[in-house]
């Protein structure tokens, strides 16, 4: 009999990749103060602890604020960038696209401290606002890439037809362009939201006195392990998985290479 070793290996590795995350989810319902084995009973205690802790609620709130504004900002800037790249034929389109997507290749650590020195240099006080700015900087390239692929095969005759029928620039955007690119924009926004909500490395340097959720996790991790970390992590995992699922649905990702 032919044994499909490669397939078995592939699924085994995948399983190993997800074991840690699955364990976290299991432990989050485990009635054990250490937050690890043995499994001693089912409890929702650790989830109730999140609700009663002002710190955690605020963390989620701050993360949500940052992620929302970053998603809005990055999707507007990124869409405009991709629009400009594709609307007209011009030289230097390739290099410009390369330059616009450069921040993806810069290590987050470098980007974080560079932004910190910049904000200090210019004299901007660190706050959630600087975090949002920083998140817009590193997530706009993703939007540019997504929207660029949307505009790549765009039929510009539609927009010209609207112009010939007497629509002004605003109307053309509102009634013609926007409805056509809306799915891609929503998908890009969801992705940015998911990335921004979890982002730590850059945030660490440019954050002011208010903490986002990853900052709280970081300080908890430095202090030692607490079972509440399990329930917080589970919520974060569910959040990013859901966002990603919806985004891929909206963007109709097909995994073709």
């Amino acid at each position: 009999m032919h044994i499909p070793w490669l397939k078995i290996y592939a699924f085994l590795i995948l399983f190993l990749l997800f074991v840690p995350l699955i364990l976290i989810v299991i432990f989050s319902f485990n009635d054990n103060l250490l937050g690890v084995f043995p499994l001693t009973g089912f409890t929702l205690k650790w989830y109730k602890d999140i609700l009663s802790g002002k710190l955690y609620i605020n963390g989620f709130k701050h993360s949500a604020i940052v992620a929302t504004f970053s998603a809005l900002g990055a999707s507007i800037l990124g869409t405009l960038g991709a629009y400009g790249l594709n609307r007209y034929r011009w030289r230097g389109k390739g290099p410009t696209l390369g330059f616009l997507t450069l921040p993806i290749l810069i290590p987050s650590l470098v980007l974080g401290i560079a932004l910190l020195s910049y904000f200090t240099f210019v004299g901007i006080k660190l706050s959630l606002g600087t975090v949002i700015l920083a998140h817009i900087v590193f997530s706009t390239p993703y939007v540019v890439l997504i929207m660029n692929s949307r505009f790549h095969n765009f039929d510009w005759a539609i927009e010209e037809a609207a112009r010939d029928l007497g629509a002004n620039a605003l109307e053309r955007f509102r009634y013609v362009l926007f409805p056509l690119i809306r799915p891609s924009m929503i998908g890009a926004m969801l992705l940015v939201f998911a990335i921004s909500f979890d982002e730590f490395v850059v945030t660490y340097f440019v954050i002011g006195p208010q903490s986002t959720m990853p900052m709280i996790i970081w300080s908890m991790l430095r202090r030692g392990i607490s079972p509440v970390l399990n329930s917080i992590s589970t919520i974060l995992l569910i959040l990013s998985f859901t966002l990603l699922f919806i985004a891929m649905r909206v963007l109709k990702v097909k995994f073709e290479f």
Partner: protein
Amino acid sequence: MMLLFTAPILVFLIYSFWQLEGFEIVPEWTLKNYAQVARNPVYIKLITRSIGIGLITASVTVVLSYPVAYAMAFRMKEGRELILLLMILSLFSSYLVRVYAWKTILGGNGVINILLMNSGLVQEPVRWLIYSRFAVIVTLTSVFFPITILPIYSVLMNIHPNLLEAARDLGAGAALTFLKVTLPLSMPGVMAGFIFTLVLTAGDYITPALLGGSNGQMIGNSIVSQFGIASNWPLGAAITFFVMAVFLALFGVGGLLTKRLGVRS
């Protein structure tokens, strides 16, 4: 947009040439910071260790992920999409959460130690599992695994089936076909995955800070401390650009070497 991104890097570069007097950053041009990095054995040690850990992690990751990518590309029709989906899910799950998950597994009363002790194999917790270079390498490997799979899978999928068929028609067996056709053609993807992982792991500071212990600290941690406790921004900036220069030099040499080898074979 361009301003938003280029200005910080420029300011940062300028800082690396200024100096610290007392607790103030003085705009006086100097190369002192760079000299300090190059002369201090601690930084050199941390940089070599970071590159070492990066090289080990990148090699382990590529070796582990190649068969998976191969299986996806040539042995599966249905499972493929599921695996890709899982890879992307894993990429998008919070980095901190994944590091934390490994902490619960490798820790003193973590999953592995408890299993080992319950089975009677060891009497007390195995200490080197956590707060060690081992912990850093294991965690980084699992974190960057999806990043290496994707480029390898993508090049494997782009190998034309006719090429494999031609090799078989010319009498090559499965092993020979793999060695002479598939592997060389997939090298660009392997290299891309390797370099990505190397750069990202060698520059990481989260995993070493949380799981590295004193022997697992990397250059990223000392850069971060220059911006935190030590509060010597110019020195921190100088270390950063020094490391980036070392990397560029390494890639330059690596590129030349592969070209040489390519010409010879």
